[in-house]
């Protein structure tokens, strides 16, 4: 089988990290530590490169007719505001009060608003699912409805019965399905990783 130098480097680095997890050796530990520091440096450089690429793309968007100029301007102004607040002389960087205010007062509410759309999107997804794959969607939505009924805030003896039913649903069928999925995912992830390491997944077109 033919391997590229990059793949060989990946395998060697992976084996060093794996060995360091099992063997206590100062030299091996320092090599593994160096590799992890290199990874952090690489990630930092990539983050800088990614930020530059994002800014360049939106700068092009501002200049190109027919593109989403307003969106690009908003992104660039946002990036500029955070950079200015974090890098101005006398700033405390990420802990600067202005940066923290920008995050707490603008970013967090925006993200919260985005997640608030989930309920609406779930209803839309249910409608779309019934149109695309009626049988599977009916089963899934039926199961969801049963769970919702069991979780209804009802008092008295019926409420106790529903609560007990909800507990049973969570601990038996739902836990069983989740564990089955996790076992399947773990096995196939291991098989996939082995296939990559042993060169089985080479492209043969």
């Amino acid at each position: 089988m033919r391997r590229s130098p990059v793949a060989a480097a990946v395998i060697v680095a992976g084996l060093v990290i794996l060995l360091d997890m099992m063997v206590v050796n100062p030299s091996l530990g320092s090599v593994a530590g160096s590799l992890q520091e290199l990874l952090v440096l690489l990630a930092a450089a990539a983050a800088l490169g990614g930020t530059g690429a994002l800014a360049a793309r939106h700068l092009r968007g501002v200049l190109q007719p027919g593109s989403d100029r307003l969106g690009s301007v908003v992104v660039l102004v946002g990036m500029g505001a955070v950079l200015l607040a974090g890098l101005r002389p006398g700033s405390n960087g990420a802990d600067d009060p202005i940066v923290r205010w920008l995050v707490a007062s603008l970013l967090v509410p925006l993200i919260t608003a985005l997640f608030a759309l989930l309920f609406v999107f779930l209803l839309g997804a249910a409608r779309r699912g019934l149109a695309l794959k009626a049988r599977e969607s009916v089963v899934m939505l039926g199961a969801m409805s049963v769970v919702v009924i069991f979780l209804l805030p009802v008092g008295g003896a019926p409420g106790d019965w529903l609560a007990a039913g909800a507990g049973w649903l969570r601990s038996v069928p739902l836990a069983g399905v989740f564990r089955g999925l996790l076992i399947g995912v773990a096995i196939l992830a291991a098989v996939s990783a082995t296939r990559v390491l042993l060169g089985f997944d080479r492209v043969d077109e």
Partner: protein
Amino acid sequence: MPNIGDLVGRLIRLVVDALGESSLRLGPVPTLVILVVPLIVLSLVARPERRWASRDLGALDHVGQAMARAAESGTDAIVSLGSAGLIRATSAAERIQTLAAVAILDRVARAAARAAVPLRVTVNDPILAFLVRGTLARAHRQTETVERSARSTVDFVGDGRPIAAAAALTDARAHGLSITAGGLGEEGLLLVGGMASSSGWSVGGSASPSQLAAPLLETHGTLVGPELFQAVAEAGGAGRARTSVIAANRLILLAVAVMLLGSAAVALGAHDFAAFLVGR
């Protein structure tokens, strides 16, 4: 004057000293088991032996047809590799889903290159952006369509899971085909829904158990749980060596057999093997 014998002797001493300084974190037997047994088992069960005619996982066999329709209608294809990324702060189980999604992208990129359909890949991890750029370039080289490579683009939309979802929701253009594969978080429904709603045909796949509703409800083709990894074998083997399915089935049967035998042994009053294996 130093000679080759001295050099070899020093190297041997260096190795011996290094071994002398070492100790095993887990002890010899568990280390040997961890290193050797899974490798032998997996290399045996994952070895290609025969052809496998599985069902069309995720309707990926329709990708070529969807690309042809996109070419006719003058639209593009869009791919999102989930929101987990490769170096973002997330679990290894999610990162390996991203790698599986890159393998699926490899197949999709070749189909797009052949059909002359512009392909746009959105990522929220800069390292992944480099990997995807290489994947797209290789797809054009393999299909001898290097002159079309400028039409395949990678967009780093910014860091963070909500950013990926917001980018998908705010994309107002119509696409011929959309594929969302990889690790998903709580924003999964928004990401998959945003991608699928503007597309003529869509595929969604994830092995994140809590986010499976999104691909199940929103997309035409679905890769749920282990299917995401099974589809990788289909894509890599191009239909000729679908061995990951065989390997997984063997392992699952083995796991079931071990569980049944262990349960029977415990029921008959024998030693609890599960407790022994987990060190209780």
